[in-house]
């Protein structure tokens, strides 16, 4: 007997083991199945059952996804997902078995060419992301989808010369993408930071005077003055607070394009 998942996949003219199908299933799974206390990220178990590393018959998975499971909180998805979408989720769950996806040979082969973790890159990654570092870059910057949108997304930094990156980290005031503004409010408080949004009603500014930055909403009637600043909203002391080795690690990480 041909498994239902194959029939569904054939109807959509895709193979269930194609990485594109698995990727599609993964996206649907993350949005529909991995949230809350359900099956957890990548099916690693929430307070619903673990799916990763378990063996399933594709027909069973297809039925449960479409019709729900009578003995649990698992709802039916037949009204939310099309046949090929259910097939993609089934393909994805099957790919979680033993944690190994049935990948096309070309993708399998490319795995062996992945660079191994470099200690310098890892140290740089920690400087960027580690929540124990109160001045971590990710409080303002995004890198490959993670972090915040206060300052520029630094994913593209990988293609920039290392000297430029160093310069921008230690002397942010010398070459400014977006200058800071200083707002004085009627209570007397001064806030220096990065303008996020401005309307006739209010000004929204990231206070970068301490970290994590705070998004302040200031209504026009609260504002005494708004003055452009000549400095960057970015802290200017990374040249002092980071050692030469740490700066190197950080640049190495930014240049690595996130390789792991």
């Amino acid at each position, binding site marked *: 007997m041909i498994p239902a998942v194959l029939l569904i996949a054939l109807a959509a003219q895709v193979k269930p083991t194609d990485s594109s199908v698995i990727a599609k299933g993964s996206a649907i799974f993350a949005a529909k199945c991995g949230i809350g206390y359900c099956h957890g990220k990548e099916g690693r178990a929430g307070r619903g059952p673990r799916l990763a590393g378990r063996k399933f018959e594709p027909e069973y998975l297809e039925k449960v996804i479409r019709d729900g499971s009578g003995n649990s909180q698992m709802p039916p998805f037949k009204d939310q997902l099309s046949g090929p979408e259910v097939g993609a989720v089934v393909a994805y769950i099957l790919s979680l078995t033993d944690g190994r996806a049935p990948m096309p040979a070309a993708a399998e082969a490319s795995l062996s060419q992945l660079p191994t973790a470099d200690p310098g890159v890892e140290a740089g990654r920690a400087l960027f992301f580690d929540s124990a570092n109160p001045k971590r870059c990710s409080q303002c910057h995004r890198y490959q989808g993670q972090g915040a949108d206060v300052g520029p997304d630094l994913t593209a930094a990988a293609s920039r010369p290392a000297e430029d990156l160093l310069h921008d980290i230690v002397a942010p005031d010398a070459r400014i993408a977006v200058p800071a503004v200083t707002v004085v409010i009627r209570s007397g408080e001064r806030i220096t930071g990065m303008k996020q949004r401005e309307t006739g009603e209010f000004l929204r500014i990231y206070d970068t005077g301490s970290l994590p930055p705070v998004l*302040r909403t200031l209504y026009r009637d609260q504002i005494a003055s708004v003055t452009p600043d000549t400095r960057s909203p970015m802290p200017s002391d990374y040249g002092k607070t980071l050692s030469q080795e740490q700066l190197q690690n950080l640049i190495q990480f930014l240049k690595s394009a996130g390789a792991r």
Partner: protein
Amino acid sequence: MYVLIRIVLIAGVAAVGIPAQTVTPERLVQAAEEPRNWLTYHGTYNAHRYSPLDQVTAANVRRLAPVWTFQTGDVQGGMQCTPIVVDGVMYVTTSWNKVFALDAATGRVLWRYFYEKPKQIASLYGPWNRGVAVGHGMVFLGTNDNHLVALDAKTGREVWNVNVEDVSRCGCSITGAPLVVKDNVIAGVTAGDSAHRGYINAFDVKTGRQVWRFWTIPGPGEPGHETWAGESWKYGGGSSWMTGSYDAELNLVYWGIGNPAADFYGHSRKGDNLYTDSVVALDPDTGKLKWYFQQIPHDVWDWDAAYENILLDLDHQGQRRKLVLNANKGGYVFVVDRTDGKFVAAWPLVENLNWIQGVDKDGKLVGRNEPPLDQPVTICPSIGGGRSWNHAAFHPPTGRLFMTGIEWCQTVTSRKEEPKEGEAYFGGEFTLKPAIKGESGGHFGAYDPLTGKRHWIYRSKYPMLASALATAGGLVFTGDVEGEFFALDISSGRKLWSYQTGSGLRGSPITYSVNGRQYIATPSGLGSALAGLMPQIWPETEHFQPASSIFAFALME
């Protein structure tokens, strides 16, 4: 992802009898002096969930009738909040971080604030929210993408918004109500079942700037770091997902800390794993640790000490003592001295409890029953707990404590697991099983807080997931998952009044008054992680309908 807000301003705060005054830190400390209001998550800083209002009594509770109902429209995850009432205005939160300001006498909407629903929440910890904190003219909300937001209490307009830690990285969120102490707003974090290092943060109420962070797992060089093997401290859980208490006289905040991760697999984190499963006492101005009491060293069952910390001043062995009581999720209640953290007493809340044989006179666990690797074993209670987070109430006139308990078990299999930052890190699997002693189900009892002596018990077919409210009218209010909200007689436990709200109760009832009329209000709406587990034992509960509403009751005029 970024946060846009939609604000619908229906009206300014209407005249509702008593003019709204700013909630100052002094008012929060003296909250018991103004019983017309419910100013903090637990009503008062001592977490008694007790009100001196006595218009509604055991003698007249039969005349209690609904006055208004409010429906939030957001039923996913249930209605888990504690409403806050300030001078005739009620603040209510729902799943997905919606905040409503209501006229507390009529239920009419004054303003709404809808936090933008994150496109994908990377957190395991649900869309729900348990309430706001108020103070300094603002309303403070934690979000399911780990932001803390301050709103103008009069208009609902956003004042500040800080991203505590990137949710796509940490898998963490804020589901508990924040706590305002003086000029700081203090918030915990979820992610105790994830590869995450927990913390408690304080922010300046006016500016949103971070004032301090207390790591619930000590870092290198800090005392207690040696209780974590290798790199396990980086991924050890230790969430702080509920709301703390505060003793203004001692200037200490008491916060309960959750389980270590991986939940069921302890081999990679050898040691006591401080400060998981502990109550910590912190200086609210600096976040410095004054003392800790660890209930469960090296927890391998996913228990938590995260629930409410009830501050009690009681006689013990002939001496007046300042105490703090905390019920562990494992089904044991611990009482310690709140000036120094010294152990005083412990007592079991449930009959189905086999992970230890007991607690000795010094507060040490006796006869640990740890799940072996890769072998399914029966552990009681279940991961849902000997009770859930829904809060107890303390009734000072009688000295009685009112608390739920759940009789159930589970099969647990401990599995080796490698941590992946921000992702689920259970280290095992579980399946719920019926009780091995007596019948499975829930109960609600009146206890002596020091000895656990039970004065009466009310039994329910299912776990009871609503908080308790005790009043000077001689009543204790709570509810069940079948939708009944009811009042029991403090002395006898006899049911005196009941009202069917149409969906199970998973939130916290409060009482307040407007223009001299006492109201009792309760959230209604079944949902939550624990409600999601119930069908494993009671299949019919799968079909219990969700909802999200507030019911306000008063005596018929």
